[in-house]
């Protein structure tokens, strides 16, 4: 994943115009708790890089003006695929599954 807004989970806030330094930092710290550097070094690197790209208003404007990085497949998928809460499968679906052992 490359898009810093997606990595930090701030895309919707960006559209609403509610991304500020505090929001970026809060998102970063939240992810840091989920992916501590000692346990998830690769995740941490990605999160850190995203944070450094967006941590100040000046950097966010610079990103909007000059960044030409294209998203990868993960970026595209995470934006386009509907993010819905999980639901339990139907009884019929389960029957289909168990009938195909």
């Amino acid at each position, binding site marked *: 994943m490359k898009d810093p807004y997606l990595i930090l989970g701030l895309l919707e806030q960006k559209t609403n115009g509610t991304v500020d330094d505090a929001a970026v930092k809060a998102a970063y710290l939240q992810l840091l708790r989920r992916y501590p550097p000692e346990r998830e070094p690769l995740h941490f690197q990605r999160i850190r890089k995203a944070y450094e790209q967006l941590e100040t208003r000046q950097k966010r404007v610079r990103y909007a003006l000059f960044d030409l990085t294209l*998203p990868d497949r993960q970026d595209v998928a995470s934006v*386009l695929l509907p993010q819905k809460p999980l639901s339990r499968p139907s009884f019929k679906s389960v029957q289909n599954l168990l009938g195909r052992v």
Partner: protein
Amino acid sequence: MSHRNKRNKAGQAITTGVNVSADQLEAQARQALSQEQYKVAVQHLKAIVKQGEMSARINVLLQEAYTGRAEQLAAQGMIKEAIVTWEVAISHGLDLADPRYLGWLVQAGQYPRLLAMYRKISAENRQFLQPILAAAALAGVAPLLTVSLPDDDPVRTGYGPARQLLEAWCGGEDDEQLRERMQAIPFRSPYRDLRQIIQSWILLETNPDQVLDSLERIAPASPFQPLAEQVRLARLDALEALPHLSALLPAARACQLEIRGWVESGVTILLKKLETLPDEPPADKLFSMLGQVYSSQLLPHVRGWLRAVIKKAWLLSYAGHSSQRYLQQLEKVTGQLSQEEKLHLAGLTAIVTKIDNWNLSDIWADCHDRFLVSVTDAADATNKNNPIDLADRLLAAAEIGRYLAARWQQHAADMDEDHARVTAIKLLQQSLQHDPEDQVVWARVIEYYLETKMLVDARDTLQEALVHHPDVIALLELGIRIAVAGNAFKKAATYASRILAVDPINTRVRRHLQNAHIAHARKQIKQKKWHLAWKELAEAGQWKSTPLNDTILQVLQAFLAHLDGKNEDRDSVKAIFQRLTNEKGIHPAGVDFIFRHEGILIGLPSRVLPEVADYDDPWKKLGKEGVLALVEIVRQFMSVNPETVLAPLASVSSPLKKAARLKFSASEGERLCEFWLQVGQKQLLVAYATVLQKAWPDKPVFTYYRFVNAEHLSPSAYSDLVCAREKAHKQGGVGISSRIEALLHRHDNPMSGMFDHLFDDHDEDDFDAEFDDEIRADMAKMADLLPRLPFKEVLNLAHSFIERQIVSRILKKHGEAAVRELCQKILRDDRNGVDEYIDQLLSESQPKEVKRKPVQGRLF
């Protein structure tokens, strides 16, 4: 004789004739089994049976052959054939209850067969088959299954509660009620895995980290695994699950999509597109795919993101040919672009196509101006498609300025450097008008003015910067530097106090403050304000800092005492000299330099110094130690102000020049040369480098120092440098080699073109007249240098005079020596010799006549 020869797929002959013994057939069967050629093995074994040689051993081999073959068939999707083949193995005594076989029966829907077998097998094996029947019962694929079983069979007794549990779970019953239902399924029930799966699902909603551990309790061969796998997949986020989806069977995939709520037809199409998209999709592919998606119903944040990506992808695909047609292609996807979007795209196109800075600046200037205009033009500025939000327009304008400034600075070396720097500073200043919060940019602009000695601009900019950032130490430090540069030492002290108020332990500023007091004291002495000078020196003395400053304070106090007539109260200059040389161990030349330095700064006439100093002249017998000690002291002074050392250095340049003859080691010499270069002492540098070059001929660095400041390079200097570069390269001195390379790059090769006029179309008399002595002398020097020149340079020289084809032939036939010899003759102005030599070489090497440049025949 009757026998059959068959050839299997692998081309191996199968001999099953009656003349082959049972032992041989068995050996062949075993070999076929080891090679997983089960079909072949079966044939061999059948032949043994036909010979009447059946035994328990052969039976086991037959079981192995049939089961292996059955597995091969199942792997090819031929489940029914696999079942039949397996059953042959059963007829040869294989155990009925094998999970593979049972699984195929379920897969093929052969439940009556399964039930029939269930009744036949032992109670122990029944336990193994029960979960399979339980799963099948729940799947509803054999409605009569439960009825056909005995009343007390666990599959039958457990069916009711299990089905209710499953229906309740699928129907969305709450966790508490589900838990109650689960209690109705005992630990030994064939439905226990269903209970475990539902338990895991509850964990997925409440404690996802424990889901995997919970699912681990289900046996890998359990018929409930497909449902367990759904829970495993459900814990992955959408991106992690994506690669797994394509590998699932249709029923499993449909179930997972249902769990994730991806049931719309649009999502199915999207998933297919995503599955074929590479991990790092190329710009054109992204443009095409996202362009198709953009037209569908999308949430605002998704639409905004897509629009930005589509524009980038379009730009990176078609930036090279951004004609109207391509823009239309983009607008076909995104709808009409706003004016601001178009200008932004034009700016990015200019970056991508790497156009020059002038055009780049013009293009971005349009975008910059648009941002500024749109701050007040609300109608356009609120267009949600614009790349920059309304609140960020000014900042965006500032960012454009900073970006362009960085570009001008990056490419300064490729163009008029001063123009590039001035342009960059102007852009940065403009950016500060829109965004005065950037302290770094303020500092850069001020530093630029300081470096270029534009003190008024530096001061004005600093005042403006301090309005926005009154307590920023970096800016206040710049204030000290500006004040010191303008001799406003009191002001410098004020800035230093402000810093100490913010950061009381800032040692750098303490030093700055002391320097400011010392400088102010010098100024007061120069203006003969003795009382004020004493006061400043006392102030300076309160700040303990460097040993050099302590020494300076002592020297200034001694001078001031002498000038103020207070010799009785203070140490004399001579006493200070002795104390510094004897007690502090500073070399007399170094101490004398400090005296000269301070004497000049306080305006002490040069004739007065020997009077007040009254000590032996340390420059008369200046040794190596004296020179090296002096350099260290000068370095310390330079760290405060590089300008002030120039005058005292000039006053001792004569003894320093003489000292060049002292026998310095190579490392000492290199240090000294580098120092003279830094301090801009060109004459001293040449004097030292010349002596050191002779003393250390294998050190190419001294050749570099000798010529580094030369305005023009003579042919011999050029040639020396070329040799030095080669030498440095061979010695692995990458740094010096590249420094020489850069030096050579700054100068034209004095040898190239030197002889061009000789090729002009005029007769020999004119040529002789024009061939002046200077060139002749240079050529003679070149001839001397020729043996030392790398062959590459010799070859270049030869090509300047002789047809390339001829030189190549001479080189090929007679080697490098002949080419060197030829160049020798050319440079020695031996015209007959050159002609004859070429003729001789060519006649030896080339029987056919080779055409030469007519002009070369007229060279001499």
